[in-house]
């Protein structure tokens, strides 16, 4: 039971990041590697704003280290990281992958500067999951599930906002630029700026995910971004492939489910007796490869099935 709750918690929190990757990878068609830097950036900002209790300035801008206000700063920091990648790609015409790598690499040092060291614990600090407000609000029996409930509320809140946004005029333009940037130009809009906007939104969500992840695990570590991109991408691909045929499941919901399925399969793989904790990245990459291949096989099978059906109908 505890394992299952753990999977759900982690799946929910990581899916905030996965929703960001959904925007760049699926909507914008932009393979954005900034993620590996902006995920820990959100965590680093959060660690720094939470632990610098001596600074009067930080106390005042965060309304006394309020964790919810700190989350907003994490969100903004990710947006800035995305803005940099976007400008490098659009204004200086650097290739998409390279633009992300440049920002990601730079962010590694910036994250260390912001956090102060490679590992910052935040034990005994107020987080969005455990603070007086939550303790007063939740009945005792539910307090055990605080992460699950709050994580669920935040993730589905973000999903709803994203769904609504993608149906606005601005959202329409964002969806159009990913499949056909020429159309956006003929609509008399600067397609480059639309692209930048999308990368900013995506990385804001990724950094928010980093901040929340860090508050759940109780410490910041510089390596927490490594593989974030692969993890998010796997969630997006699992989700959108599995639920492709089911019309009433929105892509955003599918991504959240994808994230949980991925976390579950990771935990199964890590449970096998001969795997060690240090094998995690290897398992991550192998699992990701399996998902990619399985997606292709499934498509082929569907095609064969359709052909057989047509053939049977002919006779």
């Amino acid at each position, binding site marked *: 039971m505890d394992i299952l709750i753990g999977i759900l918690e982690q799946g929910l929190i990581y899916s905030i990041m996965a929703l960001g990757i959904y925007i760049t990878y699926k909507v914008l068609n932009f393979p954005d590697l900034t993620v590996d830097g902006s995920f820990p950036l959100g965590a680093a900002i959060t660690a720094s704003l939470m632990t610098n209790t001596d600074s009067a300035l930080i106390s005042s801008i965060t309304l006394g280290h309020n964790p919810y206000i700190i989350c907003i700063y994490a969100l903004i920091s990710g947006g800035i990281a995305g803005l940099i990648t976007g400008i490098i790609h659009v204004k200086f015409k650097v290739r998409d992958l390279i633009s992300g790598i440049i920002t990601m690499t730079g962010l590694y040092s910036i994250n260390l500067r912001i956090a102060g060291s490679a590992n910052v614990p935040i034990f005994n600090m107020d987080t969005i999951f455990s603070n007086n407000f939550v303790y007063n609000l939740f009945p005792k029996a539910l307090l055990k599930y605080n992460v699950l409930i709050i994580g669920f509320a935040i993730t589905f809140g973000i999903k709803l906002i994203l769904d609504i946004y993608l149906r606005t005029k601005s959202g*329409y333009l964002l969806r159009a630029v990913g499949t056909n940037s020429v159309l956006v*130009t*003929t609509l008399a809009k600067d397609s480059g700026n639309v692209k930048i906007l999308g990368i900013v939104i995506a990385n804001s969500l990724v950094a928010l995910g980093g901040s929340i992840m860090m508050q759940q695990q109780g410490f910041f570590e510089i390596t927490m971004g490594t593989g974030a991109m692969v993890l998010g991408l796997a969630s997006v691909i699992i989700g959108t492939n599995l639920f492709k045929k089911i019309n009433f499941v929105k892509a955003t919901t599918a991504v959240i489910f994808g994230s949980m399925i991925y976390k579950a399969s990771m935990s199964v793989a890590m449970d096998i007796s001969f795997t060690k904790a240090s094998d995690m990245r290897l398992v991550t990459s192998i699992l990701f490869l399996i998902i990619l291949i399985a997606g292709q096989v499934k498509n082929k099978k569907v095609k064969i099935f359709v052909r057989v059906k047509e053939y049977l109908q002919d006779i």
Partner: protein
Amino acid sequence: MLELKNIYKTFNEGTVNESKLFSDFNLKVEKNDFVSIVGNNGSGKTSLINIICGSLDIDKGQIIVKGEDITKKKDFLRYQNIGRVYQDPSMGTCTEMTVLENMALADNKGKSYNLGRGTRKNRISYYKESLSKLNLGLENKLNIKVGELSGGQRQGMALLMATMTPIEFLILDEHTAALDPKTADIVMELTCKVVREKNITTIMVTHNIKYALEYGNRIIMLNQGRIALDRTNEEKEDLTVDKVFSIY
């Protein structure tokens, strides 16, 4: 209306592949003209259109629209007054969005793409009506992704979307070339209807000489960046496909 003055354009300047396309090229298009541009591959038809739309920079010269010099104007800003239909039917629409969403997207051209609702409910009946005028059955496919439509249906939509908001120029870039002959005829007929209805100045690049003669009031033939033939109104009436081929 539209004037190209002393245009110079050389590709790959300073390399072994250097090729001079336009040198001192001049063209004037009057208001409400329907100009068909024909010519061989490499004659500069598409480059000409790209120069007008701003997706291709020129080395020297001036582009003037209604007395305003737009030579330095960015491409997306020029499209405020230009509608364009491409050869590839997927270029004029967003294949991942539904018919309705595409219509709403085009309907908002010239206005701000803000956080307002993407598809306004009170416009849906108008979209349905304009789609039904195409006679392609699109009015019953409002919630289907454009990517699932046929090439002809998509090109019909692209035409509708390009001319939905007030524009001064319509640029048709071989917009029937990727369609089968029958669909091409339908799309060409639609084009003619829309242009006449809205009185839009039109420039059409085509490989189909029959269309070039049949539609529009002016025909221009390009040959290696020069105008080899330019006939308007009555002068154009006398031309036949054979005569045009003899100059080709």
